[in-house]
């Protein structure tokens, strides 16, 4: 009995904050007036700062650290609650699905930059590889759509490793230069390539799993209709859960230790037998795989893709999500992606200046809180494990 109570005491701050954030997000998404949105944002910032000031954040962090599986479940339920609230609002649901898919892509980038320290400025391009793979495969083959998600990941992984293989042997930041070049060339390549639709882009079939059409609204009974985006939110959540588990396990293993060690000191790592190239390639390939899977899912959801979705600017947004959220902290990515995707959509004044604003945000973060909004905690291997 007292054990159950102790568990509950640990969970309470986490659950409480999840409920509060859920209500807050619903409010933010529901409100239309620009003044009200601005007021909500200011209130949100003040509450978070106050919570941090009075130790609330630490307690919430403890809930996540000690009862990880329970908290993961709470977050999934929270997302489903918001989804349920907006069940017929296409705009909000698309926004939510986009956030989920972007988090998957950023998990990939986080593997590369957060753990292995390899900068990838072509995140949007590898995302685009996944998108175009889905477009071509849905059009020209009968491949099952879940497999197409995998294929999108594999394509991005293969292209990424071919690109990066020659430069990973060198030290310094050649990977940054190569990926910038790729990000810029990718869009030009798409624009001049007529078989891939040129500047107009390509249509993509909606997802269909075992006869279930993802792009049809879900009709329940006579006059109750749920927007089709809910399909993508559910699949997105499943893929995200898998990706999240994958990244977590990787981090909490000897492989994760290798990546951290080589990022922090290549020379010392090499003196203890670490094959630097092998582990960098591994991280880069696995990271691109996740980004590619996210791209394939995104393309099927949108139903249409064009080169303008995959600009260098989009790649920079992905990098700023990593910097903002907390390098190497998957939960930080969730928070940062939510902010960076939802904010400009809701607050229209920002839309036009969003690059300027993101740039300023990144600079401020790097100056005043270089470890990001949610700094990465110390490495662990088995959550909750205590030495005997």
């Amino acid at each position, binding site marked *: 009995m007292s054990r159950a109570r102790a568990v509950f005491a640990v969970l309470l701050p986490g659950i409480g904050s999840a409920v509060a954030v859920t209500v807050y997000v619903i409010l933010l998404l529901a409100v239309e007036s620009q003044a009200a949105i601005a007021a909500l944002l200011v209130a949100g910032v003040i509450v978070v700062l106050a919570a941090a000031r009075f130790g609330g954040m630490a307690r919430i962090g403890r809930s996540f650290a000690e009862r990880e599986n329970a908290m993961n479940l709470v977050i999934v339920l929270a997302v489903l609650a918001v989804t349920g609230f907006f069940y017929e609002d296409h705009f909000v649901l698309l926004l939510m699905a986009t956030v989920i898919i972007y988090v998957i892509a950023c998990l990939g980038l986080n593997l590369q930059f957060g753990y292995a320290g390899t900068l990838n400025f072509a995140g949007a391009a590898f995302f685009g590889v996944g998108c175009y793979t889905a477009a071509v495969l849905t059009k020209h083959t009968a491949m099952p759509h879940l497999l197409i998600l995998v294929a999108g990941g594999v394509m991005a992984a293969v292209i990424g490793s071919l690109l990066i293989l020659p430069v990973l042997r060198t030290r310094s930041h050649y990977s940054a230069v190569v990926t910038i070049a790729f990000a810029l060339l990718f869009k030009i390549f798409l624009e001049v390539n007529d078989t891939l639709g040129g500047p107009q882009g390509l249509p993509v079939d909606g997802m269909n799993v075992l006869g279930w059409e993802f792009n049809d609204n879900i009709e329940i009974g006579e006059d109750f209709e749920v927007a089709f985006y809910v399909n993508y939110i559910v699949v997105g959540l499943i893929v995200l859960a898998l990706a999240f588990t*994958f990244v977590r*396990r*990787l981090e909490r*293993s*000897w*492989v994760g*230790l*290798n990546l*951290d*060690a080589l990022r*922090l*000191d290549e*020379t*010392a*790592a*090499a*003196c*203890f*037998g*670490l*094959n630097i190239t092998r582990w960098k390639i*591994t991280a880069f390939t696995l990271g691109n795989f996740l980004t590619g899977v996210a791209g394939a899912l995104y393309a099927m959801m949108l139903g249409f893709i064009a080169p303008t979705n995959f600009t260098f600017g989009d790649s920079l947004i992905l990098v700023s999500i990593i910097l903002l959220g907390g390098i190497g902290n998957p939960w930080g990515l969730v928070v940062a992606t939510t902010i960076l995707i939802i904010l400009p959509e809701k607050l229209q004044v920002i839309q036009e200046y969003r690059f300027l604003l993101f740039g300023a945000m990144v600079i401020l973060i790097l100056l005043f809180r270089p470890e990001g909004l949610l700094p990465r905690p*110390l*490495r*662990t*291997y*088995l959550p909750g494990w205590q*030495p005997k």
Partner: protein
Amino acid sequence: MTGAADGLLVSRDLSKRFGGLVAVDSLDMAVRPQEILGLIGPNGSGKTTFFNVVTGIYPTSGGVVEFDGKDITDFSPQAVYRAGIARTFQRSRLSLSLSVFDNVMVGNHMRLDQGLWFNLIARKDFKRQFEENFERARDLVKVFDPLLADRMFEAVGTFPMIDRRRIEICRALISRPKLLLLDEPSAGMTHDETKELMDDLLEIKGRLEDLTIIIIEHEMGVIERITDTCVVLNFGQKICEGPYQEVAEDKLVQEAYLGIQ
């Protein structure tokens, strides 16, 4: 002269040049198994460079390095480690944001299962290996400091220099190397701390009978106390070798090093 036959680590005519600067100059040297050899000499005499060449950080400019009867000249750092040589660095090179356990485990790389399946899917097996290695790491750290052994999951950056030196030595020892290279382990420490660290080192040496050590050190008290034999370098050349007492009385050595500060 020590013959090549009875040396665990032997260098023959070993040289390292940086442009016009000859940092290690035709060095002949041998370390006998199980001894502690002191590598001494004034600042810039090529001691660290010798370690860097042996461990594959720099390519040699000439000559041969043999270890345990095998030619390891210009082996990669990884291959040198697998052959059984581990080292510490003059300027401590721990990862300060990682825990004590993490840092020690980096040194155990070759004994850890690195497969993706093992690490990601077979988490039960991983847990077993993790627990075994935690015990081993903690036991090793305990030899140096029992208090440190209770703080295995704290960031190294929160520890004082003496603990960092200990952790760095543990990282080098955890894989049970045949040869340990210590580059000024007492740098940045007080006299008492140095003495403490050397006590620990001698204790470890007593437990691991096969261990051979080369130690670079500026404190002559340390050298006198713990080494069996010494090699003195000056401008990359060996100017003298033998037990500390003999070396300390050598004219050349006194001129090059001991007399002039």
